[in-house]
């Protein structure tokens, strides 16, 4: 599991946010489009692509995309 690939997959879950707006240091909760639907899509994507299950609580504790990546990596 590579950070670069994760950022790309993470960005893929957004419809109106350009991928260029998202990098490792992005505070994703602050993105205008971020909501519970995108959160569930990220959760589903993580399980499907990386075989790791995370929870909404895990996401809530993270600030940046890289934080989330690290949480998933540690699972």
């Amino acid at each position: 599991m590579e950070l670069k690939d994760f950022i790309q997959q993470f960005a893929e879950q957004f419809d109106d946010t350009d991928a260029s707006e998202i990098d490792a240091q992005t505070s994703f909760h602050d993105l205008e489009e971020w909501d519970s639907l995108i959160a569930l899509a990220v959760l589903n994507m993580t399980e499907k692509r990386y075989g790791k299950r995370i929870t909404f609580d895990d996401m809530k504790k993270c600030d940046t995309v890289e934080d989330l990546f690290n949480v998933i990596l540690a699972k």
Partner: protein
Amino acid sequence: MKNPFSVEGKTILITGAASGIGKATTLQCAEMGAKVILLDLNEDGLNATKGEIAEGCAESFALNLTDFDALCETVSQLPKLDGVVSNAGIFYSMMAKLSDRKDMEKIFEINTFSHINLLQQLMEQKKLNKGASIVITSSMSGVFCGAVGGSLYGATKSALAGYAKALAIELAPRGIRVNTVHPGMINTPLIHSAALSQDVLDEDKKNYPLGRYGEPEEVAYSIVYLLSDATQWITGTQLLIDGGFSVK
């Protein structure tokens, strides 16, 4: 005086009997004097449920309901039934845009196909007594409302509701009734395994006019009602048990 709401003396098969609604229904039926037959994949859970029932009043089979050959074999060992609670299922939250064939197969196998296979085998192997009652656990989701991440789950549950309607007509000549129950969110292991945080659950509870999620026993009481002779003229109906969720 005979109590029309009783299931005393009836032989009732319950799937998903190791936990949640299935367990609560099993215990309620046994409490009211029925002989219960428990099916579930989870052998430890089955034994735990069975352990709460008086000796000789319960029989159990550890069975993967999605294994058709094993299902046929188990059905062949069953006595004639007065009631069937086709209840086993999983909850699986997946956004529609990410749902693929593998997801569909995973959830439809247990939530829909296993129910249809079981009921088909019970009919083919002539295990249903005249006047029997079949209760299928559907959901409010997919039939009365939708939920984010619930497209596949809702599809499996509405498929059951559709199946039950036709089955009710086909079995009516033998006085066999087929009804569905449609619970809203119930406090079972199912919802707590779904990655939802307590905050999300607490917020969601506010959508229920009665202010809380249901308890497995509260669905069990409705199922017992549909199994009992009190509902001999009710078939093909959909009983919504949702704490008023759909009223809003």
